[in-house]
């Protein structure tokens, strides 16, 4: 029972139980941080004895009977893809917890419990090898996120929270129908079993409907243009820790779902419909970039930049070659790091100034230079500057896309120009120019403190590390992708 995968998944849940037991706020703060750090350390052991010899490239697997009468089992496994998403989750979580510990004053205990619940659900999604288990974890992420936005958000929080939940649920409803139909056809919920059986047995009509149902659910989550309008609302309203979770990890569930379920289950339909998905992804890249240019709120700029970046990831997944898919997987991690860090930085600023409007800033480079230096590094990582993490994934996706159709690469590279444009525009409005508001002066505004640095520096170190040594990740991603590719 106590194998590594189960432990990583449920350690945060155990922490939740411990947090319930003691009501002291201090204990809950320290406890939540300790649990999330412990989960990170434990998750690092996944790297030990890495040996992806199992079929499907899974280095570790664990399976118990759950409801054998209908073929349900508790089945987890980790391969070269899910590994990094789990590590991203366990890496970002202590940062989110630390931020909330520092700045959330209202019902912090409950806030932390929700974050830890979210962590278990996220790890569960990335590790699940049983379709029902996946679905349960996937849906379960909604609950803590709903409360985080609805309870700790900004002025319009309830609207945003309900929109987020309802929109996602709508997509999931279709997916549920598809899950049941898949079971009816194959008689199993095992993801690997379905992957093996379904493509051969299902006709093109069934595949098309199933593919559309799955992709719709994931397209809302990613979000793929034009299903994205819940994202700016949710991001703007969410508390910082919620935004970090949302951008870094929740969006990745959608891309991961497409990679793990939608394409392998329905390859014929995917091959048939991929052009349309790619067109939506390309539209999202250009559209997200152009709309980001106009945003007056820092958070909604980052939200639209996510639409553009996630467009790159979907493009990469659907070009069906090693470079595109590996780049997409790598970019999921990169986007998690840099966008997570961007929301973290916006959070630092918001806690000081209680505003996120560009118009309220300007000239910050004079008053808080350390903050601005970090902001620029993160912005450059997001804009894909070589040497930092964002470049490698983007470059690989572009090369993969070029090999399939140079036109794809041409349109996507418009996004490269736009990214530089909107990020430097944001930087111009925040950091450069003269100080026009008294509240931004050096004697009023404090630069990053050591606690904040301790959250930010690890992410920046990772941005450099993955930019300079991406093979650390690619060594495991590429073999897994090459196992995934044949037949597409």
């Amino acid at each position, binding site marked *: 029972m106590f194998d590594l995968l189960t432990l990583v998944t449920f350690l945060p849940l155990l922490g939740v139980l411990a947090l319930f037991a003691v009501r002291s706020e201090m204990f809950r703060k320290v406890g939540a941080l300790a649990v999330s750090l412990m989960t990170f350390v434990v998750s690092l052991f996944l790297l030990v004895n890495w040996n992806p010899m199992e079929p499907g490239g899974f280095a570790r697997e664990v399976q118990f009977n759950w409801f054998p009468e209908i073929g349900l089992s508790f089945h987890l496994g980790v391969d070269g893809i899910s590994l990094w998403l789990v590590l991203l989750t366990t890496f970002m979580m202590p940062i989110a917890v630390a931020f909330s510990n520092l700045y959330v004053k209202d019902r912090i205990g409950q806030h932390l419990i929700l974050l830890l619940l979210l962590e278990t659900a996220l790890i569960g999604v990335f590790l699940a090898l049983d379709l029902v288990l996946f679905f349960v974890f996937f849906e379960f992420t909604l609950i803590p996120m709903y409360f985080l936005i609805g309870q700790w958000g900004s002025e319009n929080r309830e609207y945003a929270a309900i929109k987020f939940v309802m929109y996602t649920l709508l997509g999931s409803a279709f997916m549920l129908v598809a899950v049941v139909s898949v079971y009816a056809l194959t008689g199993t919920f095992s993801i690997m079993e379905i992957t093996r059986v379904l493509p051969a047995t299902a006709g093109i009509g069934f595949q098309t409907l199933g593919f559309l149902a799955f992709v719709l659910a994931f397209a809302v989550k990613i979000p793929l243009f034009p299903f994205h309008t819940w994202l700016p609302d949710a991001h703007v309203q969410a508390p910082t820790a919620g935004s970090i979770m949302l951008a870094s990890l929740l969006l990745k569930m959608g891309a991961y779902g497409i990679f793990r379920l939608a394409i392998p289950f329905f390859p014929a339909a995917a091959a048939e419909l991929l052009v349309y998905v790619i067109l939506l992804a390309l539209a999202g890249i250009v559209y997200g970039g152009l709309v980001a240019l106009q945003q007056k709120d820092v958070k909604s700029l980052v939200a639209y930049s996510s639409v553009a970046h996630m467009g790159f990831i979907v493009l990469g997944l659907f070009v069906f070659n*090693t470079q595109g898919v590996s780049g997409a997987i790598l970019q999921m991690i990169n986007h998690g790091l840099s966008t997570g860090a961007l929301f973290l930085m916006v959070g630092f600023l918001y806690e000081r100034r209680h505003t996120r409007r560009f118009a309220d800033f300007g000239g910050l480079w*004079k008053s808080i230079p350390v903050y601005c230096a970090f902001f620029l590094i993160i912005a450059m990582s997001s804009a894909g500057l070589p040497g930092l993490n964002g470049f490698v994934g983007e470059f690989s996706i572009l090369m993969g896309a070029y090999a399939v159709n140079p036109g794809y690469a041409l349109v996507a590279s418009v996004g490269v120009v736009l990214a530089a444009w909107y990020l430097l525009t944001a930087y111009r409005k925040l950091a450069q120019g003269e100080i026009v508001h008294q509240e931004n002066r050096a004697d009023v505004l404090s630069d990053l403190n050591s606690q904040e640095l301790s959250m930010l520096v690890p992410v920046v170190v990772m941005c450099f590390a993955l930019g300079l*040594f991406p093979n650390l990740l690619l060594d495991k991603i590429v073999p897994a992708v090459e196992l995934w590719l044949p037949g597409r």
Partner: protein
Amino acid sequence: MIGYSAAWLLALPLAGLLLNTFVGRRYSRTLAGTIASGAVGLAFLIAILMAPDIYGSHGEHAGQTLPLWDWITIGELQVPLALLVDPLSLTLTLVVTGVGFLIHVYAMGYMVDDARLARFFIYLNFFILAMLLLVLGDSFVTLFIGWEGVGLASYLLIGFWFDREDELYGSYADCGKKAFVVNRIGDVGLILAMGLIWTTVGTLNFTEALQGLATMSEAPLVLICLLLLLAVAGKSAQFPLYVWLPDAMAGPTPVSALIHAATMVTAGIYLMARTHVLWELAPMASAIAAWIGVGTAFVAATMAMVQTDLKKVLAYSTISQLGYMVLGAGVGAFAFAIFHLVTHAFFKALLFLSAGSVQHATHELDMRKLGGLRLKMPHTARNFLIGSLALAGIPPLAGFFSKDGILLYAFQHNILLYFLGLVTALVTAIYIFRAYYLTFMGEPRDAHVDSHVHESGRLILAPLWILSALTILGGALNLPFVLTLEHALASVVGELEPPVPSLEIALLVVSAMVAIGGARLAWGAYRRHMAWVDSIRATFKPLAKLAQQRWYLDDLYDRQILRGSHTLSQWLSTTVDQQGIDRAVNWGAETALNWSRKLRRLNDGRVPTYVFSMFVGAALLVAYFWIAL
């Protein structure tokens, strides 16, 4: 051994910038400059030590490779990080570190009063690091790291005074942003070229890719070259992407000298020389490059004629000279393009730094307010004059030999190219002597400016004199018929067909006469104010008007493209996003809500309603079975 030293070339500026980031700035104000200059100076010494080996070894491939580590490995896409030291990259390395070192030293004097001195030197060292990676990288991708890195350095340094705003530049921060974004447009060309190269030959390593591509048919090569040309137009400020460079002058003058004259902007020429095999096999692309080069050279020279700001004259002059280099590469004279790159680095850095000396002393670069500076700033004036003579192409200074080489091969290629290049040379001589006369000769025109003019200090003047020496003697690198540099580069950029000696001598004489004639014209116009010159000026009035309006290209960009994309993005974010897509989503939700409200009335808790609906249901069931059976 060589490779080992090449790693030091990168390690030194890296160490300098890290030291200054974490340690140096805490101690004294002079320490930051000393560390930064020391790092670059040492790198220059190392490059010198490498020179005998690299230039001495003649052969098919004189280069030596130093693998660093496996950077990106994704199936067929393999990009190891490695440095390539060959005569071409070493030549550029020597220029970058040598001229770079002088400018670092100069900046210690020039920037002495600036509050953010340490930050300035951190950026400068970062620039040197990125530039060396650019020229030493052994693959397109490694080059691209440096390519983007120098772009970031340029952005940071143009906007170094990010809080300043004035009439000439607008917001300095916006100038930096413009440079970066316009360059990114060019970068798209490089990215797509890499896509085409990689899908065609499966590698992005220079040596392997060029070997592979050499056997290809012409069509993909032309496309690759045109994509590369877009990148060249961005980085090396050629038509139609040159518009960022005049604005880049918002940066401190040492930056203008180092980045926006001597080194970074020549990266495009380096890229063309590095890929010369492709250009030679794609004559159509080469011809387009040559025409863009000579066109840019001419147009920019006319714009330099009408500027009132000294630095802007030099900025347009740089665009124009880069045009010559692109022309040189376009007509296949890669060795002369690189030769001109080197001499231009000397004399243009000299001109910029002299202008900086003026600015340091007077806080004024508007030539209408200057004049007569030679009296109080004799050293600066003499240095500027030396630079002007070289730029104008007056023998035997360095610029004469390098520019003439390019014109010689242009003549053999297409007489029209040569003619336009020659006219540009005439305009060049006029505009630079106009600038010299307005600034240094005549009487002071502004009493306030004149009152605090003083000659600059030793830290500023010493680099000027060294650059002057290089400007005077630089031609010796590649004298006609001796051709030292050309032979040294031959192993990388190929041998050139030697021209007919009589033709070469004839063209040398013509060039010299044109240069002297141009200088004479400027002398007549701006020194003696002769009547006959005025009549010539009247003839060219329409051209001057065109040049003053910057040939309307900036207008086109600002009014049409920039405003157009703003309108588009505005329309997308309000009309499409908020009022279209998002409203549709909310409409869907509200419709569902309305329906559920209506349906709720069925469950009103009254027994009669339920009994009624039961009857309806039963009736429908009966009806169904009736029909079905």
